[in-house]
């Protein structure tokens, strides 16, 4: 679960495979690919609810991925909410600093400084 949460947070905020216009990968090492570290993350509080599945004998299912499935949209929505008052309706994932700035600029009437950025 913890690892899943971390990966979802990372997908929402920074991890992404980027190619240039000729198709060359720009994020081919961990120096360029923003693999999230302990410093960017908080500790997590987890609570369990038990709902046995009726479709196998053990009643058990894997849950590791559920952390990712929940945390990515939670983080992404939090970022969108934080800039909603500026008129921003959407930011592509991951919400890197440059993307958020571009989205803010695009939403601001009469200011297209950010449109040229990636």
């Amino acid at each position, binding site marked *: 679960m913890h690892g899943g949460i971390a990966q979802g947070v990372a997908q929402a905020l920074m991890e992404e495979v980027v190619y240039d216009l000729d198709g060359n990968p720009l994020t081919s090492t961990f120096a360029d690919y923003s*693999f999230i570290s302990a410093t960017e993350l908080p500790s997590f509080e987890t609570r369990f609810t038990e709902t046995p599945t009726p479709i196998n004998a053990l009643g058990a299912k894997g849950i590791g991925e559920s952390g990712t499935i929940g945390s990515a949209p939670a983080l992404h929505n939090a970022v969108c909410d934080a800039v909603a008052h500026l008129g921003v309706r959407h930011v592509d994932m991951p919400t890197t600093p440059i993307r958020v700035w571009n989205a803010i600029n695009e939403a601001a009437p009469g200011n297209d400084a950010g449109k040229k950025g990636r």
Partner: protein
Amino acid sequence: MKVDMTVNGTPESHDVAARTLLVDYLRDAVGLTGTNIGCDTTSCGACTVLLNGESVKSCTVLAAQAAGDDITTIEGMAHEDGTLHPVQAAFQECHGLQCGYCTPGMVMAITSLLKENPEPTEEDVRVGLEGNLCRCTGYHNIVASALVASRSPEMHR
């Protein structure tokens, strides 16, 4: 060239090419494969060992640079009778690993961190581990392991 150093208390002497990295010296010449290579761009910390007691990324140190030095790898952490080092014991207690790939580097980085800062806060640990990546655990239990290890009496002797 001949490169001599002390690894986990044992004198080692091997004939290697000048371009041999410390991590390859340890893995291939000495035969200690506990130290992993995870990235090769000095980013992941899986290759972290102690050089004269301080954490370094052994993929970014030439074996020749470490000639004459004292190296500690994960194999040198447990006591002779097999009792785990407090940082290792804390990882076991707190379930601080899943696949284990990052673990040797994490243990060495935390050992060095605790030597420099014996009573770290959670934030100190998180900042101190900025150079060590883990894909599996989300770091929660690794940070907990470091804090538990910091409270071990053996770490304060």
